[in-house]
């Protein structure tokens, strides 16, 4: 008997979860009614999950950062309110809720009061297009996403830019010099880093052939983008840090220079909103990195590609929190940039590297290098019918495709199945099953490679953070000063 939600197991985790699924959840439902139930309920459930998820996440990321930062800084971090300090952020929010709200007389009331809205709302908006999980329900592959906008990544860029206006409003509206300087720094920083950021995203779009976030995740079913596009990943990571004002790019909030930056004059709940927006952005940027470069909800193939809600959401969250941890790690380690170094770094280094990165990826796709194809196979295999389906289904919901071609007329091996965010991606398993043994070996080799590569990346990051020893060693310095006679080592 084939289980309702069961996917062909690809790994031990999937197998385990399927077993649990069959044990507890597999009621006798006809396949048609199951599908109807799924299409209606899943949307609602997904939306509710995401709404609750946002609230919990924002509260949790703050605590998460403080605890992890405490770990890096040999101290405990908040651990008193609730188990392991779990309710610390709730307590903080309640405290800020009761705080007196002071608006300086010199401030401009309208701008001053609108700014928290203009900063907080865009940070929420990003959640619309972030896919957080996927599963087989009713025989089709459903994605946990509010709406799979076909311009997904462009939408994210547009939304994240809106917050900048909020920062400028806050900075100018408070009529405070630190806030003003901070706001201008913020503006300069965000517009400068947006250019390399978009260029890094273009590399992903090239491989996926679509701007939809779901399509981008699907394009990574064989190998995550971090492997072929490691340069792009680094550029995006750096720009993401800059866009969220995280260390080492926390110039707008440099407390040693500008006290509290653009929210110097804000108190009580308005300050809390700026604070929450910042941490929402941290999560959002991590989630975007996960989606664009780390394969989204997909787990490593050897642990199962994620055939159930639980596995897929687990992988998505795990990867996202790994990114958040890296953000915190960088904050715990690095000093702050100076504003001219910051701009120089974006324009003189990141922009050309990002442009070259696009050209390299473009060439990779053009010459059908398997790393850059977003689907398995070399040029010969891709020309066979099955592989063709794999390649083209990815285009199915892309905006360009819909604009350029009337999808009604599509015939032949191209399948387009669209619904309310419910896209049939059963081809993944079809493709895997249809693969020759050689191809399967290739798959596995890739995944092992990807895993090793990840370890290598982590190791590199570790080495880099432990200190690129560009400064001469102290002994050398010392012998140079004292003519090589004295013994520097005490």
């Amino acid at each position, binding site marked *: 008997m084939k289980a309702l939600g069961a996917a062909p197991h690809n790994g031990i985790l999937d197998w385990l979860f399927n077993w649990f699924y069959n044990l507890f959840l597999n009621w006798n439902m006809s396949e048609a009614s199951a599908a109807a139930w799924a299409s209606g309920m899943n949307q609602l459930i997904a939306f509710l999950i995401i709404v609750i998820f946002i609230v919990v996440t924002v509260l949790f990321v703050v605590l998460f950062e403080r605890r992890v930062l405490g770990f890096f800084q040999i101290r405990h971090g908040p651990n008193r309110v609730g188990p392991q300090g779990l309710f610390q952020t709730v307590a903080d929010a309640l405290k800020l809720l009761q705080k007196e709200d002071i608006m300086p007389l010199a401030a401009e009331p309208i701008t001053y009061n609108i700014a928290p809205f203009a900063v907080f709302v865009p940070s929420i908006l990003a959640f619309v297009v972030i896919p957080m999980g996927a599963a087989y329900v009713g025989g089709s592959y459903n994605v946990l996403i509010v709406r799979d906008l076909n311009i997904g990544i462009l939408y994210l860029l547009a939304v994240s830019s809106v917050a900048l206006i909020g920062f400028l409003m806050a900075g100018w509206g408070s009529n405070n010099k630190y806030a003003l300087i901070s706001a201008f720094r913020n503006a300069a920083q965000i517009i400068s880093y947006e250019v390399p950021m978009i260029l890094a995203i273009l590399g992903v779009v090239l491989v996926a052939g679509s701007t939809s976030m779901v399509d981008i995740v699907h394009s990574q079913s064989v190998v995550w983008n971090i492997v072929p596009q490691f340069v792009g990943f680094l550029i995006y990571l750096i720009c993401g840090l800059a866009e969220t004002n995280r260390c080492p790019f926390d110039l707008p909030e440099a*407390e040693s220079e500008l006290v509290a930056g653009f929210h110097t004059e804000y108190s009580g709940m308005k300050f809390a909103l700026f604070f929450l927006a910042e941490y929402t952005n941290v999560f959002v940027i991590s989630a975007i990195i996960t989606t664009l470069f780390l394969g989204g909800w997909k787990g490593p193939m050897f642990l199962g590609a994620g055939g159930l809600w639980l596995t897929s959401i687990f992988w998505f969250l795990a990867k996202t929190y790994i990114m958040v941890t890296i953000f915190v790690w960088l904050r715990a380690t690095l000093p702050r940039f100076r504003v001219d170094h910051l701009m120089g770094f974006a324009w003189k280094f990141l922009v050309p590297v990002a442009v070259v990165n696009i050209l390299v990826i473009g060439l990779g796709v053009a010459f059908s290098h398997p790393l850059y194809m977003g689907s398995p196979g070399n040029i010969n295999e891709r020309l066979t019918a099955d592989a063709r389906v794999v390649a083209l289904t990815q285009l199915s919901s892309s905006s360009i495709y819909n604009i350029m071609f009337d999808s009604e007329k599509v015939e032949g091996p191209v399948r387009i199945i669209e619904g309310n965010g419910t896209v049939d991606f059963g081809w993944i398993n079809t493709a895997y099953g249809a693969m020759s043994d050689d191809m399967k070996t290739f798959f596995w080799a890739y995944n092992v490679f990807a895993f090793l590569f990840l370890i290598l990346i982590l190791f590199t990051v570790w080495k880099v953070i432990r200190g690129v020893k560009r400064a001469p060693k102290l002994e050398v310095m*010392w012998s140079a000063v004292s003519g090589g006679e004295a013994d520097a080592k005490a």
Partner: protein
Amino acid sequence: MSSIEKNSVLERRIDSLLTDEITINFGPQHPSTHGVLRLEAKASGEVITAITPHLGYLHRGVEKNLESKEFLQGIPLLDRCDYLSSMFNSYIMAACVEELTEIEVPRRAEWIRVVAMELNRIASHLLWWGTFCLDLGASSPLLYAFRDREDVIDLLELISGARLLYNYIRPGGVRGDVTPEFMKKLEGFTNRFPPYIDEYEELVTGNAIFIERVTNVGVISKERAVNWALSGPMLRGSGVNWDLRINEPYSAYPEFTFDAAVEEGCDVMARYRVRMMEMRQSNRMLKQAVEGLPEGSHTAKVPTSVRCKKGMTYRRIESPRGELGGFMITDQDKAKKPWRFHLRAPSFANLAAIEEMSKGYMVADMIAILGSIDIVLGDVDR
């Protein structure tokens, strides 16, 4: 394009924009002024065009107060001037009194003084290192610095009973003898400490962002540094080999082997390296003290109420911040109190050069430069 041409292009661009200068207050209540210093800065955009330090927010009239206190009573008060290196302040008073009473300090006492002062120097430099990195935006070094400073403070607590304001060095010697337990712990510390500094260097000194932030920032040439009467790491960071412990030896320093830390960079990085090197040198001295602490008494025989003969004296020592001088006048024989006591505070003299150092740099650099001066407001205002 030559630099002059480029500058003229840029100047024209600035002029055509017709912008105003912004006047910003840094302090008295500001995270990076390390106390209640107020810097009134004028900036065009983020480039500093003028800085005026305003002092006096922490002025407690210590010098005037000393005139109404006996010499021994004055020491706790002096401790509170430069509260991060109070051993040195105590030493200044003790040295002045010893000169006017001609008390012979036992050799062991002088050695213990050196141990106490060098421990205090390490504690002071550690705190400086943490806060300096915090000024540059790195938050972890502060925590690491405090972890290791705790070790030093514990040692100082063992000998003096206090953790910040020691009141330990006094005319004729020190208040209490060191215990074998202390010497054992000191030895442990001297072995533990070099890896600590290696860790700091690994964490911060080699960091590319850090290097960019501190090299060629706050440059003050050898000549200007001397003319501004800078002292301590500020002076040695500008390539002047002037360390009072070597050039004008006092206490038991001639018996120790150590080197002056000198850097030619003239910038913030040079000062940073000087201080890091000084910590290693201090540790080197502590090691020597562990091995060769002489036997004897920890203090000379001094009456409870010390009486000085009439006269005046100026003694100066190398504090963590620079040349700490004490100028004492007594107006009569058997004087119980100083008629006038003046402290030549290194922070005050060093701070004066901030405008020259930070003009033309950016706001962020100004903070780094201020951090590199290592001011203690208690020392500046007194």
